[in-house]
């Protein structure tokens, strides 16, 4: 019972882990390359959530200094995640460029068809 109570208090983290595992499952278990890249992107965004959630202070506000407020949420994870978001889109763009070239070389983007074609040669 205590475990259930703790899970309810940590509900945010549980859902973040569920998102992360869904992204991992898409990458591992689906053969379509574009869908794999989208699964990777879902995995990355769930990691952003995992970093930002501990930084929130209940009763605090956004970290912009203003004389009317005294408690601010932690700004350090925000900085790291800003960089991570942009790096994520750069990775997605390069991955999609590679998928376009693979499609031109093999005619398909399904993993199993590509392996079959390689095995035939």
């Amino acid at each position: 019972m205590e475990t259930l109570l703790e899970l309810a208090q940590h509900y945010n983290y549980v859902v973040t882990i569920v998102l992360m595992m869904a992204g991992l499952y898409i990458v591992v278990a689906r053969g379509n390359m574009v869908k794999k890249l989208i699964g990777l992107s879902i995995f990355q965004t769930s990691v952003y959530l995992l970093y930002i959630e501990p930084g929130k202070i209940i009763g605090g506000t956004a970290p912009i200094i203003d004389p009317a407020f005294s408690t601010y949420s932690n700004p350090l994870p925000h900085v790291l995640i800003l960089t991570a978001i942009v790096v994520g889109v750069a990775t997605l763009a390069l991955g999609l460029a590679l998928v376009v070239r693979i499609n031109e070389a093999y005619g398909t983007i399904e993993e199993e068809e590509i392996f079959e074609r390689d095995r035939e040669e």
Partner: protein
Amino acid sequence: MSLDLILRVGTKLILPFILLFALYVQFHGEFGPGGGFQAGVITAGMVVLVAITFGLEAARRIAPQALVDRMVPLGALIYAGTGVVGLLLGENYLDYSVLAHDSAHGHELGIFLVEAGVLITVAGTMTALFYTFVERGR
């Protein structure tokens, strides 16, 4: 009246406001949410909107390929250059305190220049990505 017409007129009306919003986000990044990355992506989004609504030729009139090709490294050069200025004036690399007459103003000027560099690179790269992906299909 075809629906095409509504889209074209609406886009023509809203385009300058998108650019204005991008510049607002860039320059107000120090006082509210915003900064170089968001502004760069909104600027690239404006070029993409023009390309979708009016065709690729109209987008090339606004953002010619030569300009975009030069914007991509220019922003990184501005960023690294700000650091080198700090080095030439006797302090550490990327030290902003020597850029103006006193330390706080120097830091503010350094942040402004650095965010401008980031804006130019991000806007150029996102537009170049869009152009490259679309060119491949022709």
